[in-house]
Structures are given as structure tokens and as C-alpha cells.
């Protein structure tokens, strides 16, 4: 695929990013009674949308989708550490409860 042919894809992903962001704003604003979800459900939903957006940027704008696997490993290394850190944070929270 030529770089010129990639332009529509870049624009489409930009539209998706903006749309998902606005969806998160709507979820946040209507969650006060209108959305049949508990507070933690809304938080999970909004953070899941952020994760999807970050993944789209990394895969298509930072070209991890088509780049060498070594770069994917470099990019995933901190993500694994983040998962570990989250595990420690939430397990600590559970222990305190």
C-alpha cells in the first residue's frame, strides 16, 4: 500500500479516535441516573475506550502493526509492568478491605 493510499486510513482512524473520545464524554455526562450502570461500570467503560484509542494510535499512527516485532516487544515491556503495578495496587486495596 502506498503512502498516498494510507491517507484515507489515517483520517478514518482520526475520526474513530474523536468519536470514541466523545462517546466517553457522553457516557460520563449521562451516567448520573440515565445509564443503567454502577459507578465502577462507567469507570471501566471509559478506561476501556481510552485503551482502545491508545491501541489504535500505537498500531496505526506509530506503525506497530507493520513494524518489526522487536519494537512491539519494546512497546509491550512497560505495558506488562503496568499490569503488574495495577495488580499490586488493586491487591493491596483488597487486602486493606
Amino acid at each position, binding site marked *: *500500500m*502506498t*503512502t*498516498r*493510499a*494510507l*491517507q484515507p486510513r*489515517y*483520517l478514518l*482512524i*482520526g475520526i474513530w*479516535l*474523536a468519536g470514541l*473520545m*466523545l462517546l*466517553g*464524554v457522553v457516557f*460520563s*455526562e449521562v451516567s448520573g441516573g440515565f445509564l443503567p450502570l454502577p459507578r465502577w461500570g*462507567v*469507570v471501566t467503560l*471509559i*478506561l476501556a*475506550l*481510552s485503551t482502545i*484509542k*491508545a491501541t489504535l*494510535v*500505537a498500531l496505526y*499512527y*506509530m*506503525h506497530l502493526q*507493520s*513494524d*518489526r516485532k*522487536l*519494537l512491539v516487544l*519494546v*512497546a509491550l*515491556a*512497560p*505495558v506488562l*509492568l*503496568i499490569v503488574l*503495578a*495495577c495488580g499490586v*495496587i488493586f491487591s493491596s*486495596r483488597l487486602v486493606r478491605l
Partner: protein
Amino acid sequence: MNGAHAAATTTFGTAPTATGIPNGKLGMWVFLASEVMFFTGLIGAYIVLRMGHPAWPGPEGHLSVPLGTTNTLLLIGSSVTIVLSLAASQRGALPAARGWLSATMLLGSLFLVIKGFEYAAKFSHRIFLSTNVFWSCYYTLTGLHALHVLGGIAFNGMVLASTRNAARWASRRQRLEFAGLYWHFVDIVWIFLFPLLYLI
């Protein structure tokens, strides 16, 4: 590696490396990985502090969602323009690459201007870094992110300056890809900061 991106990487004329990845690009990714951990530490501290305060952030912790949303749209737009700049550079359309890169710098600058207005509004209400834990977190997270945006604008400016001389640009064009990687990282950090600070 495949497609236009692979072709572009090989036509940049960088010296062959043991990994098959230009050293500058690998170095940028390792740097970004360390930056991810830097912001993870800060965001993690924010989450832990927030989980310890059931009424967080309280009535004094109101932030303008429309301003935050506008800033997010600006950064998303700047990610689109810088990737279009890279695509233009890869097909040899230097004027277009310069135009998209300038647009990226403009959008990044607008982000900082809006952030400045937000800060000014809080300062006018005598809300500072030391007001309470929420505002300490807010100013620390957004301030460090804004410094990264400023650094990204400076980086983009240096790349833009090097496009003036075509001969010089031929040996330095891969810096646009490095600048793009950094700029996208700054965008990703804001993608998480915006909901954590403004929405949740």
C-alpha cells in the same frame, strides 16, 4: 515489516544494524518505554490517592469538560496531521510535509494556550498546587504533560527547520518519524489523563 512504512524506512538510507531497525528509531522506542513508566508512576499515585478518598475530588475539584474535550480533539487532530506529514515526506512531497508539520505545531500550541487559560482561571480562584491533594495531582500530571507537549513542539520545530535545506533534509528525514513517535506518545498520555482527571 511490510508496506509503505517498510519501504520508507529502507529508502531513508540509514546504515544497516544488527537488529534491522535504525538505531535512532530503536533508541526512541526505548526512551518512550521509559516515559511510559514515568507517567505510569504518576498516574498510579493519582489512582491510589483517589481510591483512598471516597468523596474525591469534592465540589472544589470541578474541571471544565468542554475545554478538556476541545484540547483532546486538538491533540487527536495533531496526531493525524503529523502522520500525514510523515506520509507526505515518504512520498517526497516536501511542501506538503512541511505544511502538515506546521499544522501539528499550531494544534499543539493551541492545546497549550487552552491549558494556560485553564490554569489562569484556577489561579484567579486562588487554587494552586498546594490547595489540596487533587490539585497537587492535577497540576503535576497536566504540568508535566504540558512540558512534554512543549518539548514535542520544539522537536517538531527543529525538524521543520531542517527541511529548509533539501540536501540537509535528505540525511535527516528520519527525524520526522522520531518526532512523530514522540508526538503520538504525548497524545496517548493525554488520552488517559483526560478521562481520569475530567470525566471520572
